[in-house]
């Protein structure tokens, strides 16, 4: 292999790896199941020039004593949260699992990571029952697009209802497809 070809191969590999990241997102957007999640904008953080909001989803903190499924989690474990649809087209947690569970109609499984937990007290080891977990789904941070909402700091108003639309793929990965504040909707472009 000539030197030029070796450089070309490495360059191609790097570009392909970057393209694959975006390709995976497009695949999720195109093939994923759309869900709507109620959320509270936790805080709006100024970047140097723009604005970033952190979403605190209803499904971000799960009370495992009230949900069926697995309840023995460790910090940073992967958790599969089965979601069910409510009449208002919103989705709520139905059960938690260590392995991907089977799904029925009107159910979606979201993959997350346990970022904090509380255990049930008064239970002797080695059985460690988890009482409550905080879960990160990877759709918590959102850089507010310039001009998407009026006024610019729309997320700072606590009286406004914020809904996040997300697409979930077969592996349980979610991607934000749009954000609604009251009746204002901003759809995320595919690219």
């Amino acid at each position, binding site marked *: 292999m000539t030197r030029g070809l070796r*450089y070309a191969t490495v360059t191609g*590999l790097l570009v392909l790896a970057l393209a694959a990241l975006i390709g995976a997102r497009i695949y999720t957007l195109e093939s994923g199941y759309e869900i709507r999640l109620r959320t509270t904008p936790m805080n709006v953080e100024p970047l*140097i020039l723009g604005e970033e909001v952190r979403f605190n989803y209803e499904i971000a903190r799960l009370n495992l004593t009230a949900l069926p499924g697995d309840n023995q989690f460790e910090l940073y474990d992967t958790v599969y949260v089965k979601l069910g649809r409510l009449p208002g087209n919103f989705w709520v947690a139905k059960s938690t699992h260590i392995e991907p569970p089977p799904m029925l109609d009107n159910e979606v499984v979201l993959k997350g990571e346990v970022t904090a937990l509380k255990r049930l007290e008064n239970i002797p080891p080695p059985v460690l029952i988890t009482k409550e977990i905080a879960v990160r789904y*990877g759709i918590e941070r959102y850089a507010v697009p310039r001009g998407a909402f009026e006024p610019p700091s729309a997320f700072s108003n606590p009286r406004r209802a914020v809904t996040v639309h997300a697409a979930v793929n077969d592996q349980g990965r979610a991607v934000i497809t749009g954000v609604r504040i009251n009746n204002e909707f901003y759809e995320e472009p595919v690219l």
Partner: protein
Amino acid sequence: MVTDRELDKLRADLDRWVAQGVISPARREAILAEITARPARTGRGGFSVMPFIMSVLIAAGATVILMGFADPALIPRPLAVLILMLSAAAALVLAHSLTARNRAVASEVAVLVGLGLFGASLFFITNVYFIHVHPPDLVAVWAAASLIAAIALPSRGALAMGLVTATIWSLMEVQDYRTVFHWEYLPLWLIAVAWTIVLRWRTGLHLAVLGFTAWSSVNLIVGAQLLGWGVLDVLGLGIIISTAVWVTGRYLETRPFPFPRTLEYYGLALALLHVFLLRFYTQYQAPYPIWQMFAGFSALTVVALALSTFPRDREPLTAVLGLLFVGVLYPNLAPMPALYESLFVIQHGLFILLALWVTVHGARLRDSVIVALGLTGLCAEIVEFYATQTGAGPGDNILIGLGFVLAAVCIAAAVIAHRTIFKGGRQARGGES
């Protein structure tokens, strides 16, 4: 200056002409000497314009990353991604063009810039497109890509990048995600070591040993926690041992000992590593206030860097100044948080000035390790300042800053790798290699 390929062709032609009796062997040598002594071409031909275009693309990529992290909505995403892909590719095209012109050092730096842009782009794309990833996985991809480049091109700079990124990947897994004994690091490390041996690159081997030590150290921390030891106890012990190694190396410099400088640099690098870890862990560990640890970190780094560059007769003065800094100035700021905050920028500014001075001082001493230390400190501080100003949390700092830190560290590694820049430096400060 002619390229390797042109020179090979000329040699073949000359040999043929000598064999045919067209020219004499002496004439052959004279032609070769005349051709190789020619200055570099500076014409406006298409080929010489290429490095300029590639450099513009690289600068565009760096600008996109800086602007994008400051405000992801500032540049349309497809345009940003296109520029990033082009800039990473441009750096490698430039590296190839520089290799063809026998500019080995510049070519290595171009490879590093390309890989740095690639790594920063991984984080950039996942950030602006809100793609959920396990952050250490991105660093693992970065490390794997660097090692592939190191073997395929081949490139010492890429190998250094691979070693550094692989180590950071492992540190992230262990520190951020409390992974116990992250053995997945070892295969990548072994590949890197094997390739270092194939390339007969001694500095790379030192880098590999340092990486392995860092890996062992963080795994030990997790192990010690399981045994009930405090993180800060373990890190404190690490700092004391490293400092002892450093001071011993310094002491042995005037004694008949084969590797005093190597010992000194190992001690210094490991002490700084442990102080960095201390700073990281204290963000989560009560009751140690963050500001005290931050101050301690900066002060210790300042002292370490200063001591490593000062002439022997001035070391006591530097040490006293450093101790005053740690022991008197900062504790007195404790009851005055406002003053501490107001001095934040000044402290950053002072550190950047010091790191610049260390870099220049190292260049004057013709000591590539000191230059590398200065550059690393400089870039780390710039990144820290940048991350502080963007209001990012400790976890985000890694995401935002990693690209810059690694690019900087690896460019510093390139400086170490190519001691040709510092030819004669060993004679200036002793003959150890």
